[in-house]
C-alpha cells in the first residue's frame, strides 16, 4: 500500500520524458529476449517477450491459490446428503446470527472509515503546509506505524484503553468523567483500533494527491478575490476528491477483512465476518456455510476494488 502510493508518485515524475516509454514505442519487437514463441507469418512478428519469467510464479499461484479458491466457491453449492444446494446461501440471509455479524461488520467498517477520513484529510492537509524538515518528520511518523505489526498496535491499545490505562486516567484527571470509561471488549474499542490501522493508508495517498496541487492555482483564485473557504471548496477540495474517494474505498475493503482487531479488542463479543469464518472452519467444520460467506465477501470486495481501480486510474492519468 505504501509502495502503491510511492509508485504513483514515481509514475508521475517519469511521465514526461521517461526514456523507457519512448523506447518501448520505438523498439522493434524482434529483439526478443527470453522470447518463448516467435512465429513469422506474413511478416508479422507475434512475440511474447519475457513470458517465461512469469511461469514459475503463475504455476504456484494457480496450484495453491486460484484452484483452491474455485474449489472453495464450489463447496458452497454442495451438500453431502442432497447434492446441489442453495441452502448455504439461504442461511446467510436468514439465520439471525449471520445477519447480526453482517450488520456489525458493515456498521463498524463505515464508522471506522468515516472517522479515518475526518482525521486523515485535515492531517494530510496540515502536513502539506509544513516546512521541509517538519514535513519529513510528520510523514515518517505516519509511515512508521503502517509497518509496525497490527498485533503490536492492537496490543498497545489494550495497554492504553484499559480501566487503569493512560486514556482513562487522563480523562479522570481532567475531570471529564467520574468512573473509568470501558473502551475495551466492545464496539468502541474495535472501532478505535481499526481507525488506527486505516489512518496511514488514507493519509499517504491523500498527501500525495495534495502535494500535486499546484500552489499557483490557489494563488490565482486568491488574486481573483476568492475568500479562503471558496478557494478550499471550489479549487482545492475538488482536486483532491478522486484521491479521497479512492482512499475511502480502499479503507472500506480492508475493513471488511479485519480479523485481529475485533478478535483482540472485541474480546470475542464483537465478531466480524472474518472471525465468524474462522469459527465456522476451525471450530464446527462447516465448509459449505463458510464457503457461501467467503464467496459473498469475495464478490463484495472485488466489486469495491473494481470501482477503486477505475477512480485510481483516472486520477493517475490526469
Amino acid at each position, binding site marked *: 500500500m505504501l*509502495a502503491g502510493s*510511492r*509508485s504513483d508518485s*514515481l509514475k508521475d515524475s517519469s511521465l514526461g520524458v521517461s*526514456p*523507457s516509454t519512448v523506447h*518501448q514505442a520505438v523498439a522493434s519487437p524482434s529483439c526478443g*529476449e527470453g522470447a518463448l514463441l516467435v512465429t513469422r507469418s506474413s511478416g508479422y512478428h507475434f512475440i*511474447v*517477450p*519475457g513470458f517465461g*519469467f*512469469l511461469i*514459475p*510464479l*503463475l504455476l*504456484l499461484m494457480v*496450484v*495453491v*491459490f486460484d484452484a*483452491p*479458491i474455485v474449489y472453495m466457491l464450489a463447496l458452497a453449492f454442495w451438500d453431502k446428503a442432497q447434492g446441489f444446494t442453495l441452502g448455504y446461501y439461504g442461511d446467510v440471509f436468514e439465520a439471525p446470527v449471520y445477519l447480526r455479524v453482517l450488520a456489525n461488520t458493515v456498521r463498524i467498517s463505515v464508522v471506522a472509515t468515516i472517522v479515518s477520513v475526518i*482525521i486523515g484529510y485535515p*492531517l494530510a492537509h*496540515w502536513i502539506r*503546509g509544513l516546512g521541509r524538515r517538519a514535513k519529513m518528520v510528520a510523514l515518517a511518523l*505516519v*509511515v*512508521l*506505524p503502517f*509497518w*509496525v*505489526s*497490527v*498485533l503490536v*498496535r492492537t*496490543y*498497545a491499545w*489494550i*495497554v*492504553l484503553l484499559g480501566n*487503569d*490505562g493512560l486514556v482513562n486516567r487522563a480523562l479522570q484527571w481532567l475531570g471529564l468523567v467520574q468512573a473509568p470509561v470501558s473502551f475495551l471488549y466492545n464496539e468502541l474499542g474495535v472501532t478505535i483500533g481499526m481507525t488506527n490501522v486505516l*489512518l*496511514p493508508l488514507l493519509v499517504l495517498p491523500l498527501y500525495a494527491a495534495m502535494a500535486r496541487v499546484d500552489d499557483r492555482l490557489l494563488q490565482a483564485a486568491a488574486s481573483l478575490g476568492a475568500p*479562503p473557504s471558496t478557494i478550499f471548496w471550489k479549487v482545492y477540495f475538488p482536486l483532491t476528491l478522486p484521491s479521497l474517494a479512492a482512499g475511502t474505498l*480502499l479503507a472500506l475493503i*480492508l475493513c471488511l*477483512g479485519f480479523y*485481529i482487531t475485533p*478478535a*483482540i479488542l472485541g474480546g470475542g463479543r464483537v465478531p466480524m465476518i*472474518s472471525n465468524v*469464518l474462522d469459527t465456522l*472452519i476451525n471450530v464446527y467444520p462447516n465448509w459449505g456455510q463458510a464457503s457461501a460467506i*467467503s464467496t459473498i*465477501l*469475495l464478490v463484495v*470486495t472485488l466489486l469495491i*476494488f473494481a470501482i477503486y481501480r477505475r477512480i485510481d486510474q483516472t486520477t493517475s492519468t490526469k
Partner: protein
Amino acid sequence: MIGSSIWARNILAAVGIFGLGFLTIPLVIIVPMSFSSATALTFPPPGLSLRWYDAFFGDGRWMDAMRTSIVLALISSIAALTLGGLAAYGLRRRAVAGASLAEGNFMVPLFVPTIITAVALYLGLAKMGLLGSFLGLVVAHTILNVPICVMVLGVAIREFDPRLEQVAWSLGASWLLTIRRVVLPSLAPSVFAAWIFAFIGSFDEVIVTSFIAGAYETVPKVMFNKLILEVDPTITAVATLLIAFTVLALAIVAVVRAQSDKLKSSVIMQ
C-alpha cells in the same frame, strides 16, 4: 491555505497533531511499559526492571517461535523476491497478452480479505498434503509477500533504461549474464527494499499462519494466542522488540535509498 484565518490554521494544526499522536502515542507508550517492574499494566511504571525481557528470552516456547519466525521469514522472503522479481521483469512490457491479468492475479492476496487467502491456502495445501508442514508455511508466506515484491520491483524495472540491456546483448552477453551484471546491480536498492518489506511481511503474519501452521509456532502466532486468553506483560517486551526491529529495518531502507539517489545524481552531474 492562502489567507485562511488564524483560527482555521490553529484548528487544522490541532487535528493534525491529534492525528499524529493517535498514530504514534500507542507505540511510544509500549516502550517504557516493557521495562516495568510491575505485573499490572500501569503507566507510568512503578519501577524499572528487565524481568519481561528475561521472561521472553528465558521461555523455550518464545525462543522456538522466534527461530521458526526468522527461518521462515528468511526463506519465504527470498523465494518471494526471486519469483516476484522474475515476474516483474517479465511483466515490464504490458503489451504481453494476459500480462495485466497475470499481474492482477499476483496482487490478489494484497487486497482480498486475509481470511479468504487463508482458507484458499488451507484447501490448496491440504490437497497437496502440506498442511501443518514447514514447506507449506514457506509456500503460503511466499504467496503473501509476492505482491509487495512485484510492486516495488515493477516500478524499479520500468524506470530502468532497457537500452542498457540491449547494449549488453549486442555485445554478446547472454540474458542471464545481462541480468546478473547489468540489470541487478542497478536495481539493487529496490531489490533490498523489497526484500526487507517481504521479510517484515512474513515476520508479522498471523492469520494465514494460524490456519495452516499446525504445530509450528511463530512469534505473532504465540502473541495472538496469548492475547486472546489474557494480558501477559511479556508481550510488552516482545512488542517493543518488534517496534525496534521495524524502525531499524525502515531506517536501513531509507539510508540505502538515499545513498543510491545521491550516487545517481552524482553520476549525472559528471
